[in-house]
């Protein structure tokens, strides 16, 4: 069944069910259709979409005057369906999609905390993003909520979050965090265990909520790109790319071919840097320091080339609205290509040594198993999804420039364990190196920046890119005067964090760090 078929079939089914769909013109076609529906059918629409095998990708809301618009983004075969509905300001409520799509669970709780929109029938009534920094009757993303809020001098800890409790002889709880023992971001994990075995894990995130969506309001495009580049520091290129793509759509602007290729090089370099770091860190979490030292050395070499060519070790602020900040010279290109040759050789050496190491194998094979059906049910994306058979990659399936100019294979595994998530990263590094070479070969002289047009007030854009962790969504709406009125970035971590609670089950508590590292969700990208 090709893509257009499923939208037609779905539409027919909706008609049969008496659901009226208003298909709206948008800047997103042909990659995304926009359907406006009545609030009452919000859940029913989710049910029919689920039957059609659509994946739930993102959900957010915005306030326009005296009403809220709630959006949900669904996807199948690289075609997106953006459904939206309007609800009144006085008693904002609509049926929840979370009972149909588990992926919508935390997202709807976030929307509830931030806007005070009630999702009727939501299986979990607890707050998610809100701890104690604001009162439960106020909602930071409403337009009448001042950006400074009215915080107490010391924000108290969130002591009364009702975690799931376990009872019975021999079970005990381990609370971990928010401050962890290593150099990592803060979050709380609550384990229920018997002996060493994990019976249940509950995540409590939101500790690094910095009000990104609120402080985005009123920014200029340049300043929004900077902020987007700090949603999750390790994904700075892809987040600013998604935000810029959305703003460029709103402005009706297409970037020069050379700029797209350079963005591609940046994004692939970011992917390689992070995967190198992760592979080392996974090995380190099972006390295999050799790999950690080798991979952190390779990562350092790689970052130094970032600094030489692009002027920043993590590539921050290289992607700007309309294109990229700086060009690459011929000698830069030569350097980038030369760098790849020894990296490939070293990777082969090290990976062969690792592959033959049984003490490493013992720890990573079969541990942290994520079955394909659970990965599918939670809409898991990126390397976590692809290690559990979820064959989806925005670069291939949406083929946004520059990925439309190249042929490449998306790695796929179905073992679903830590080893699988390890190998998929390795394969993605190899594929990314090839992509970088292809992009360099495709470079032709030309501009790297398109002149900015001020978008008309009310125009919107939807950026979708494949970051190193997976699919990133950025929604942008402009006010007049070139100012942002709404920015919502959906980091892949938001979809991937929930499956950590599943894949650790029946593993031993001491294996939690390596399970967690193999997924490596971003706390900052989740908490916003």
């Amino acid at each position, binding site marked *: 069944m090709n893509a257009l078929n499923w939208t037609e079939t779905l539409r027919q089914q909706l008609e049969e069910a008496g659901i009226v769909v208003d298909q709206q013109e948008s800047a997103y076609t042909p990659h995304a259709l926009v359907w406006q529906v009545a609030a009452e059918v919000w859940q029913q629409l989710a049910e029919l979409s689920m039957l059609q095998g659509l994946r739930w990708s993102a959900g957010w809301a915005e306030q326009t005057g005296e009403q809220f618009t709630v959006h949900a983004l669904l996807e199948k075969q690289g075609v997106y369906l953006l459904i939206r509905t309007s609800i009144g300001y006085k008693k904002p409520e609509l049926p929840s999609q979370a009972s149909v799509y588990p992926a919508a669970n935390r997202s709807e709780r976030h929307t509830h905390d931030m806007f005070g929109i009630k999702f009727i029938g939501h299986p979990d009534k607890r707050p998610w993003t809100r701890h104690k920094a*604001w009162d439960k009757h106020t909602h930071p993303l409403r337009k009448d909520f001042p950006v*400074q809020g009215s915080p107490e001098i010391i924000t108290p800890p969130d002591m009364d979050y009702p975690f799931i409790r376990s009872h019975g002889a021999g079970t005990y709880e381990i609370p971990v965090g928010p*401050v962890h*023992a290593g150099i990592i971001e*803060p979050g709380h994990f609550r384990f229920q265990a018997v002996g060493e075995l994990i019976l249940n894990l509950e995540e409590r995130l939101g500790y690094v909520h910095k009000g*990104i969506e609120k402080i985005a309001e009123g920014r200029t495009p340049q300043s929004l790109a900077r902020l987007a580049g700090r949603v999750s*520091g*390790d994904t700075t290129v892809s987040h600013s790319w998604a935000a810029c793509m959305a703003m460029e759509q709103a402005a009706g602007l297409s970037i020069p071919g050379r700029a797209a290729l350079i963005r591609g090089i940046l994004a692939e370099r970011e992917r390689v840097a992070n995967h190198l770091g992760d592979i080392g860190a996974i090995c380190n979490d099972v006390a295999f320091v050799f790999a950690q030292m080798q991979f952190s*050395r390779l990562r350092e070499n790689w970052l130094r080339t970032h600094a030489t060519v692009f002027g920043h070790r993590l590539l921050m602020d290289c992607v700007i609205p309309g294109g990229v900040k700086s060009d690459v010279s011929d000698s830069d290109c030569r350097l980038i290509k030369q760098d790849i040759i020894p990296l490939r050789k070293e990777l082969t050496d090290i990976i062969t*040594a690792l592959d033959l190491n049984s003490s490493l194998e013992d720890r990573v094979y079969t541990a942290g198993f994520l079955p394909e059906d659970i990965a599918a049910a939670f809409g898991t994306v990126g390397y976590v999804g692809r290690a559990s058979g979820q064959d989806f990659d925005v670069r291939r399936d949406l083929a946004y420039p520059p990925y439309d100019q190249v042929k490449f294979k998306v790695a796929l595994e179905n073992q679903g364990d830590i080893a699988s998530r390890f190998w998929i990263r390795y394969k993605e590094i190899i594929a990314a190196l090839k992509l970088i070479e292809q992009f360099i070969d495709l470079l032709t002289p030309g501009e790297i920046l398109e002149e900015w047009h001020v978008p008309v007030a009310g125009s919107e854009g939807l950026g979708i890119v494949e970051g190193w962790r997976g699919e990133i969504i950025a929604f942008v709406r402009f006010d007049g005067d070139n100012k942002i009125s709404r920015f919502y970035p959906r980091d892949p971590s938001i979809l991937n964090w929930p499956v950590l609670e599943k894949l650790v089950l029946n593993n031993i508590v001491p294996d939690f760090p390596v399970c967690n590292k193999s997924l490596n969700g971003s706390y900052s990208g989740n908490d916003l």
Partner: protein
Amino acid sequence: MLRLFKKILTTGIVTEPVKAPKDVELEQLGIAIKRHIDRRYSGSIAIRQIDAGSCNGCELEIHALNNPYYDIERFGIHFVASPRHADVLLVTGPVSRHMQTALLRTYEATPDPKWVVAVGDCAACGGEFGVSYASCGAVSNVIPVDAVIAGCPPTPLALVQGLLSLCERH
């Protein structure tokens, strides 16, 4: 196993020398307390890192301190798992309001004498996030700060030099 040893031997030692920071640089780092530290910690410090709300960029560069190029442990600087073992708290990020109490408690749990180093522009002044309903801004708005290492994020070299200046041996 043999391959493993071969790789270790052929890689050799890649650790690079680091120039001791000059007085001017020390001043830039805002450190007037260096001598006290020399005396109290005899040239070795234990660090507890706390992310109080960062975007995780700063953490990536702090991680790099342990890679073979920088090998920060050779200077007697090491990271510890508990604030109770720490001499220095390395704090990143604007302090999110949701982390405020956690940071205060970690600070209290660290035995005296202790020093707080704010790492990154966010920790120094709030950076891109500033002060809002969700963010307290600079670390110094929450706990006393003794030194600042600026940058977004600071490079590992800037971090090494900043930390060295805390425990410089003469």
